[in-house]
């Protein structure tokens, strides 16, 4: 039974209650999806801020030898954390950087990161395969807004996690390394300061990136809406430039995202195929973002409206709807 049929089967009074609940839930879900998209874009903004700093050939690369090499390096082995892989060819140190535009629940997020660090340490060989070279040691980095650093540092220290904390200030366009104590030997030993003294010195002083231009417009784990809009834009341009009709096929979408991602990470074929299918299934249409929000919020609102209706009306028999 559909949501609508269920609603129609109710008494007038209950119908009105359910409709009112549904409207409220629908608005809530729309706002929630909007927030998720906004959050994804802000995440992408921070990723670009960091990756622009470590672009090969620019200041930080020439001063320290650390250069951006991988985007979402662990994506292919099923670890969702860490957005960037920054590698130093001489020391063979790999920095795995997790970017967050804000941290709402510090403790659980740090716990999650701690688990990801543990898992990654156990899969170093696979990571070396992804990088295509040997790794001497890995340093983990959390990049967050500078104003959230002190609380996060405290938690990192309390949980004894080997995690360097970088704080960014997008107003100043500045990135800095923060440590809880000035005992560098202790901080290095506990994995909360970089072993490379030169890198630490430069990052303690702070380094600025002049621009937030999008050198990385999408990443494999980008929100479906961000991906869809990007893919649509590319497909539209390709077709207009080639003078072909506005039609596309599965390989067009597959190759487009393959070209985008294979440059800076290894992505398994199965993952790409799945992503391509989801993009096509969600379809390409005008005002895709609004459309996406409305359709998905509607679906989610139906489910939560029923649950709330059950609570508020005392209605017990939901079996026809649940079937």
């Amino acid at each position, binding site marked *: 039974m559909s949501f609508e049929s269920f609603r129609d089967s109710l008494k007038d009074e209950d119908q009105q209650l359910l409709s009112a609940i549904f409207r409220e839930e629908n608005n809530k879900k729309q706002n929630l999806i909007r927030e998720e998209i*906004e959050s994804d874009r802000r995440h992408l903004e921070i990723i670009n801020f960091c990756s622009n700093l470590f672009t*090969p*050939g620019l200041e930080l690369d020439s001063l320290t030898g650390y250069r951006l*090499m991988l985007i979402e390096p662990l994506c292919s082995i099923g670890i969702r954390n860490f957005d960037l892989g920054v590698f130093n060819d001489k020391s063979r140190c790999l920095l795995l950087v997790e970017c967050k535009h804000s941290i709402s629940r510090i403790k659980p997020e740090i716990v999650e990161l701690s688990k990801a660090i543990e898992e990654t340490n156990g899969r170093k060989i696979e990571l070396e395969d992804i*990088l295509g070279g040997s790794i001497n040691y890995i340093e983990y980095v959390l990049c967050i807004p500078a104003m959230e650093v002190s609380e996060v540092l405290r938690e990192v220290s309390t949980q004894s996690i080997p995690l360097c904390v970088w704080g960014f200030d997008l107003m100043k366009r500045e990135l800095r390394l923060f440590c809880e104590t000035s005992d560098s030997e202790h901080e290095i030993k506990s994995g909360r300061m970089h072993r490379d003294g030169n890198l630490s010195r430069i990052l303690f002083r702070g380094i600025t990136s002049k*621009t937030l231009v999008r050198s990385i*417009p999408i990443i494999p784990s980008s929100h479906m809406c961000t991906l869809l809009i990007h893919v649509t834009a590319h497909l539209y*341009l390709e077709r207009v430039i080639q003078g072909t009709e506005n039609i596309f096929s599965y390989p067009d979408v597959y190759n487009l995202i393959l070209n985008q991602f294979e440059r800076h990470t290894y992505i398994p074929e199965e993952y790409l195929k799945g992503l391509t299918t989801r993009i096509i299934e969600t379809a390409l249409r005008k005002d895709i973002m609004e459309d996406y929000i409305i359709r998905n919020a509607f679906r989610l609102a139906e489910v939560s409206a029923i649950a709330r209706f059950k609570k508020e009306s005392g209605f017990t028999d939901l079996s026809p709807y649940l079937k």
Partner: protein
Amino acid sequence: MKIPTKPYLFDTFIEELTSIELEPYTRLKVACFLTSFSKWYDEQKRINVETVLKKYGVNIDQLGDIRRITAKYFDTIERKEKIATFYSYLDPTSKALVCFTDERQEAIEQTLENIAETAVGFYYAFITHKVFNVLRKRILDLHPDSKCTYFSATYSPLQSKKSFTRPTVQRTMVYYGMDALETFDEVSEYYGVHPTVMRYDIPDKGIYEIHAKGSFSLWSEEKPSESRSFLLSLSNLALEDILISRGIIESSNYELIPVKTEKRTFEIPKLTPWIIDFSHEVDFQDAESLIEIMSSNGFSIFNEVKEKGSIRLNGMVIDDKKHTLFTLDMDSTKMYVAPIGEVSFDSFYRFYKVITENFDSNAICSRFEV
């Protein structure tokens, strides 16, 4: 314009142009365009100026270094379709296309200027407020007795610098008078307008009209040869300044830097932007206006981030007319613009025109220094 059909070198064509008798009630004009091409036809290249123009139904005849270009337009006075003729020179060094004609302004607008809106590697030599000022200074330095006798100027409420007087009113001002320059300075201050056309009466030379879309018109001439040569020097002067902006825009770059490990090679994008420096600090409301301006001029921004307070706007942009993709990042004082893949200069120049024409008429472009 009765130019004999024979092969010309550029210099011999100019000799011919400055000495021929113009038909009554016609005016000599120079319309300037910027292109990506140093030759009319280059078999090594996929796109050529000839193929681009022919795609838009333009006919091209070769007269040595000069090409006679003919295209259809609709004459709004005679209410019928007519053929407009232009004699054009493509400068191999600057890649500027300079078109000479005695057609009316609407013929230029409906043919070459219209093509420039969408053609790849082709755009009109848009004259910004700054270039209007360069020309004004040069004219007054060389001929202090010159008078500006006419101007047309516009203001939009979306502009970042609001007019003192009724800032929410869209306006176009047209002024005739020997004090047009002084009047323009006064009204630009109070009514926020920027010039689209300016006309100068230059003693012993003639009357010259300058249009923002890069065309120059000789309204009356004292001595044909000298007056026409001065028309050319005016257009050259504007082009000199416009080509500096073009050089800045073309300093932007998209590069994939290969980084190697023992077994793999990755490619990391390195973007070199060009910069639009605003003439004053802009606020969040201005950033919203900018998105509106971009959208109504065929630039769609997507996957953008907008931040109030410290003002940040960054995201990806599609040029719906020139079919390119680029990225921008703006704060309260400047905007960084960088290509994603190959973006020909004309798309960026069109963007620069849209910003200076609708958002900040005194904005200038500059190079990105690492």
